[in-house]
């Protein structure tokens, strides 16, 4: 969120960011693939202090039926923040303006990678539940949802990752936390398909110059290699059960 604030905290202390990170340093990311048994696919991510659970159901019957498409599946997405997820209570956890918007953009991200034409007349449901929020929940949610979709066996063109890049003063920094998100000069979440660098989500709060935007893109693609590796490692780990090593699951 841009704009001057009366109580703006210092975001750069001794050349480092508020949480002691470098400008191009990600927070710690940990992904668990398919923690839930009843969903078709699921993933749990801990991205810094963010804790997010993503679940996939389907393909299943389209509800309401008139939305059914005989050429492809219908994708539905719900992003929701738990009442206890942030510092100030969120009140009731139903859909609000922000959640509706984020659900829509996440749906559009995955519509471009899921091979929906393989499941005509059906519906795929994607649920992203934010249990604890600390800035960058939509990007962490997309990263988790990609893993959840992979564990559901739904054919996809790519394993999408997302990360935010923003501007503090004249310097760019990657992966904003809540304080940076609230008081920085600009914030740009990006979702990318690593296979060909296709940009599937690009939103921005605040202002950046043309040169800064292209530098931000480079930073996101650079950090994406790390995020992608963590995603794929999480998937391999969930299935890396070797003979004689039965206690792992």
């Amino acid at each position, binding site marked *: 969120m841009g704009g001057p604030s009366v109580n703006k905290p210092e975001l750069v202390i001794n050349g480092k960011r508020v949480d002691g990170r470098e400008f191009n340093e990600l927070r710690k990311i940990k992904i668990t693939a398919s923690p839930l048994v009843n969903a078709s696919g699921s993933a749990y991510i801990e991205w810094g202090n963010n804790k997010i659970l993503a679940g996939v159901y389907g393909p299943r*019957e389209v509800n309401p039926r008139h939305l059914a498409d005989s050429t492809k599946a219908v994708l539905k997405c719900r992003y929701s923040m738990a009442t206890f997820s942030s510092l100030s209570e969120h009140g009731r956890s139903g859909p609000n303006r922000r959640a509706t918007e984020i659900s829509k953009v996440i749906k559009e991200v995955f519509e471009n990678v899921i091979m929906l034409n393989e499941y005509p007349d059906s519906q795929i449901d994607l649920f992203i539940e934010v249990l604890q929020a600390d800035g960058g929940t939509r990007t962490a949610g997309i990263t988790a949802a990609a893993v959840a979709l*992979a564990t559901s*066996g739904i054919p996809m063109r*790519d394993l999408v990752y997302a990360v935010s890049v923003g501007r503090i003063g004249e310097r760019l920094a990657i992966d904003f936390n809540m304080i940076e998100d609230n008081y920085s000069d600009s914030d740009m979440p990006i979702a990318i398909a690593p296979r060909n660098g296709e940009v599937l989500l690009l939103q921005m709060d605040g202002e950046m110059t043309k040169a800064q935007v292209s530098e931000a893109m480079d930073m996101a693609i650079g950090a994406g290699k790390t995020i992608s590796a963590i995603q794929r490692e999480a*998937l*391999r780990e969930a299935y890396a059960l070797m003979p004689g090593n*039965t206690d792992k699951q």
Partner: protein
Amino acid sequence: MRNIVTPGELIAPAPVMVKNAYIEGGKTYSKVLGMYDGAGRGIIPLEGAWCPTPEDTVVGMISEVKNKVYVADLSYFGRSLIVPGKYDEYNFSEGDIIAAKIKDVESRRTVILKEAELLEGGTLIRVKPKKVLRIIGKKDTMISQIAALTKTQIVVGMNGIIWLRGGNLALATEAIFRVEREAHTSGLTETIKLFLETKSV
């Protein structure tokens, strides 16, 4: 060497026909999470929904009876019907467990069943549909081994529902769930044989 591949992972730098892969820009990528050994067998998916094919054996429950037409619940999101032919004499009631074969898959996800038979008593368990082939095994080796060593009657439905009756039910169930869990490992038939022999003594 079998490797786990993830969606979007490069399979070959040239366009190659591989099952469960797609070609884009002259390169071949995986579209599922699966096992790939580099040979011509294609990518074997680790997860996924059941896709009904004619001649599949299924296990389900009769959920509705209407004018001699039976609606079966196969835990599949489409409709599945048993329409008796001229010489069929079915007399099922709601809640009956049946085994049947798929006659035809029609549009709008309607599955027509044939050769339905009643399964009396017994227990149902549910497994992941993509693991059913491994539970059955090559030439039925795995399932006949479990059935023989536990003296249990077993009917495996391709839809992921398995019916068991008699014998050492608990052990048979445990063995099936173990196969499901370790489906992607090699030498599983031997492991399960050893497991059953040590447990059944």
